[in-house]
Each structure stands twice: as structure tokens, then as C-alpha cells.
């Protein structure tokens, strides 16, 4: 700092008239030594609801932070500090402020700003750009707020569309195109879900009998119709909470929720088989099939291991196939003490 500016630092520098002060600081309060408003900026008068001249500052503004001040001594003790205050006329609108003492005990200049409450104030008082000093960043803050909400809105809509696409892609990926049943992916996901929930259920592995002959004799088109009819009958026989999936050419897996009693399961399986044994009419051809079924059971006491459940149902199915066609076998776990290693 050179000598000239140092001497200026102590002297009063500018004398401004009211309108000029108002343009520079539209939210100022120029206070006389007694603490009355000598001049107020146009915007603060708009917010405070009229002419403020002559009124004690404590009737116009309420100091909140760092502490309240009711007289000039209290106010000037806060000179230079960041202030938080409200207008008595607008107690919910939080303002920022700064007070400085004027030279020679001439009073004080208190300048106010809206800070973040700008958004509320603009709406409430229908402020225009002319209510702010052009040097104020109010317009930029409003601009950014609107730009941000426009962009966020676009992003939210994009996220919703993408999520919709994801859900439908996952649904497609887990669906067997021919029959509309779930596929192996659906089976694995549902198994994991049931095991995670600890929900008891039976896993019914079904393999169609005599289906290969239909395919070989009448062609794949007829075979496909038969598979669709099988899917329909199985869905029809099962409850809504059960999950019917097609996991291979003529292989189906059904997860039957909350049923673990071997006798009851055997009955259900027999009913499914006899339903499938009803001839299926395709273009005048009488297609006769049957099915072999192997079952495994998950209870709260079993280890939640999907591979083991599938393996046990496979073993039971293998036994059914070995015993002839149209059989049902429920896998019975070996007794732990006498049976040795179950693996």
C-alpha cells in the first residue's frame, strides 16, 4: 500500500446521494447516530412493505446472529461481522447482512442480501432483475436453479425410461419364448429368492415321456403346439404362487410353495401326469404323452443349497424313469446317523 492510498484509507471517500446508494445497494439501510433509518434502498422497502424513513432500525430488522441488537451501540459492536437477520415485516425470510460504522460518528450503513431465501422472495414479491444491482449474482442463482431443475427432470425421466427398459429386458430374458413360461434363468432366480426367504417348498422336476416320438413322427411344429398345451395345463393345475418353468426341450420344473409333505406331493404329481395324459389334439392328430417326475423338498431345516435341491430332484427323476414311465418319486434324504455321507 502506498502513502496516498494509506491516507485515503482513513478519510471519508465518497459522498453519494440516495438514488445512487439505492442503485449500488438496493437493500441498504442508512442509519443516523440514534439508530433511525435516514435512507433505505428500494428493494428493502418493497420487502418491508413501505417507507422506512425515520423508523428505528430495531423495528425494521431483527438481528438473529451472532446476537440480537436493539440500539446503535449493540449494532456497531457487530460491525464487519457476517450477520443473519430478518425483516420484522417478513420474519420467515432469512437475510444476510453487514454493518459498517460511518465516519465521525455519523451513524451506520447496514447492507442486506437475500442469500438462499432469494428463491422464496422472488416468488413472493414478484421481483424483477431491476430490483437487484446488476453486480448481484441473483439472476445467475435463479438461472442455475431453473437450469438444474430442468436438467434433473430430464435425467429423472431418462432414469425412469431406462429402468422400464431394464425391467422389461429382464422379464424377457427370464421368459421361454415358445411357451411363455419362465426359463432356467427365472428358475434360478426364484430358487435363490425362496431359499433366501427360508420359505418351504417342493422342487418338481418333470420330463415328458413319448414326446420325442411326436417330434420325430409329426415334426417340430406339432411338437411345439404340444409343448404349449403342456405349459397351459401345468399352469392351470398349479396355484398362482407356484412357479412353472421350462428348462429344456421337454423338461419342466415347478416350484410348489409351502407344500413339503411327500404323500401330498405325490398326489399332486400324479394329478399333473394324468392331466398331461389326456390326448392333445393338433391339426387332427391325437398326440399322447405322459411325464415322469422327481421331487425334492426344502424345509427350514435343510441347507439353502440350490444345487443340492436340483441334484436330489434329478436323482428322483432318474429313479422314476428307471422304474418305467409316468412314475413319481420323492427324494428321501438318508437318515443322518445311519445313512453315512449324504453327499
Amino acid at each position, binding site marked *: 500500500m502506498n502513502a496516498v492510498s494509506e491516507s485515503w484509507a482513513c478519510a471519508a471517500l465518497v459522498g453519494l446521494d440516495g438514488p445512487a446508494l439505492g442503485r449500488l445497494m438496493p437493500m441498504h439501510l442508512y442509519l443516523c447516530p440514534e439508530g433511525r433509518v435516514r435512507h433505505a434502498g428500494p428493494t428493502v422497502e418493497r420487502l418491508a412493505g413501505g417507507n422506512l424513513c425515520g423508523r428505528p432500525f430495531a423495528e425494521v430488522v431483527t438481528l438473529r446472529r451472532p446476537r440480537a441488537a436493539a440500539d446503535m451501540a449493540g449494532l456497531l459492536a457487530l460491525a464487519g461481522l457476517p450477520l443473519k437477520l430478518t425483516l420484522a415485516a417478513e420474519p420467515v425470510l432469512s437475510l444476510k447482512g453487514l454493518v459498517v460504522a460511518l465516519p465521525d460518528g455519523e451513524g451506520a450503513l447496514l447492507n442486506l442480501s437475500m442469500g438462499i431465501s432469494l428463491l422464496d422472495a*422472488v*416468488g413472493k414479491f*414478484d*421481483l424483477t432483475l431491476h430490483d437487484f444491482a446488476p453486480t448481484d449474482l441473483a439472476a445467475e442463482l435463479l*438461472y*442455475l436453479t431453473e437450469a438444474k*431443475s430442468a436438467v434433473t427432470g430430464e435425467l429423472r425421466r431418462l432414469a425412469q*425410461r431406462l429402468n422400464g427398459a431394464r425391467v422389461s429386458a429382464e422379464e424377457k430374458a427370464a421368459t421361454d419364448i415358445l411357451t411363455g413360461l419362465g426359463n432356467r434363468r427365472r428358475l434360478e432366480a426364484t430358487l435363490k429368492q425362496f431359499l433366501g426367504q427360508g420359505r418351504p417348498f417342493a422342487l418338481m422336476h418333470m420330463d415328458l415321456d413319448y414326446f420325442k416320438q411326436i417330434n420325430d413322427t409329426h415334426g417340430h411344429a406339432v411338437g411345439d403346439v404340444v409343448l404349449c398345451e403342456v405349459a397351459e395345463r401345468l399352469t392351470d393345475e398349479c396355484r398362482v404362487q407356484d412357479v412353472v418353468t421350462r428348462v429344456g426341450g421337454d423338461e419342466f420344473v415347478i416350484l410348489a410353495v409351502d407344500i413339503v409333505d411327500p404323500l401330498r406331493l405325490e398326489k399332486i404329481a400324479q394329478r399333473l401326469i394324468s392331466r398331461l395324459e389326456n390326448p392333445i389334439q393338433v391339426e387332427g392328430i391325437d398326440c399322447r404323452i405322459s411325464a415322469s417326475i422327481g421331487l425334492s423338498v426344502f424345509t427350514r431345516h435343510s441347507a439353502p443349497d440350490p444345487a443340492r435341491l436340483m441334484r436330489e430332484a434329478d436323482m428322483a427323476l432318474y429313479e422314476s424313469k428307471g422304474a418305467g414311465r409316468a412314475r413319481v418319486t420323492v427324494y428321501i434324504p438318508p437318515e443322518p446317523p445311519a445313512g453315512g455321507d449324504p453327499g
Partner: protein
Amino acid sequence: MHGLINRAIQCFLGDTYGAECWSHVARVAGVEPGGFEAMLTYEDALTDAVLDAAVDRVGLPREMLLEDLGTYLVSNKEFEALRRLLRFGGENFLEFLFTLDDLPERGHLAVPDLELPDLELSEDAEDGFVIHCRGGWPGVEFVVQGMLRAMADDYGALALLDVIDRKPGRATLTVSLLDAAFHAGRSFSLAAGGR
């Protein structure tokens, strides 16, 4: 090209010439069936293909189509957000013109990867202005022309606009402000959702 611009072209064609026009253009240009996403970026060539197909279909010169696009962006209700963002530039059309230099920065504040042309305003000898438009994509000066014409109308100003010089990557527009307060203009409140 930014999805916002592609999306704007899509909305413009659909709203102005009908959904059938847009689906034809999209098919010819090879746009994905769902149309453009505003927040994704696409190859510039795709935007070009869309504009070519639109010119073919609509039967207007490219320049006119782009100018109409600019007007649409400011005056259509669907793009009210954009009109509002532009109106933050100033209280009247003249103030608005003076903020054109900041347009790319303002654009980046809103969408950091949005490419807008550099606009430089200078005062002309005869009570008018010259806007130098640099960069952006080919023909963007016509979109700017349409937008400025619509903004003048929005402010209630009477102004004449012309593209007088075009070279690759830059163009010059003239603005003659005949009457800054020709009519009342459209209302604007700083508050979002205001009257």
C-alpha cells in the same frame, strides 16, 4: 451432437408436421425407435441424416427449416424452460442482446457438455448490431436467427434479423432494433412457475 439438440429437432418435427412426419424421418435417418434421449450424445452424422430426411419430407430449404426450429424452441410451451433461461439474460431485448456473448458459458452452467456457437455482438454503424457466430454445427446461425427473432417478439421488440455472410464454421447476422417496446411482449416473472 448433444441429445438436447436432437430431441429438440424431434419435437419440432413432430409438433409442427405431425407424428407421422417424425416417424418417417426417423425411419429414413435410422434413429432408434424410441427417438432421441435428451441426456445422451449421438453421432453428428445422425443429426445430419435427420435434417436431410426432414428437408426431403417437408419440402423446405434447410435454412428455413432451421430458422423455424429456432423460433419453435423459444415460442413453444414444451420448451418454456429454455425461454425462461434465455429471459434471465435481461429485462428487455437490448439487455438480452448484450448478454449473448455469455451464451456458451451460460449453456455450460446448465449442461456442461452442450456445444453452443460463440456469439460476439458488436454495434453497427447504422443503429443496429452485428453478431458474429463461430463454431457450433453447420447451419446453427439459422437456428440462432430464429431464436433471436422469437426472443425479440417475446420481449415485445420489433427487430429485423438477417444472416448476411456464411463461411464454413462462421457466419454473420445483422440485427436492426426498430422499436424496443413495439408491443407488450410475453409476461415473464423471475419466480419459476410465475405468471
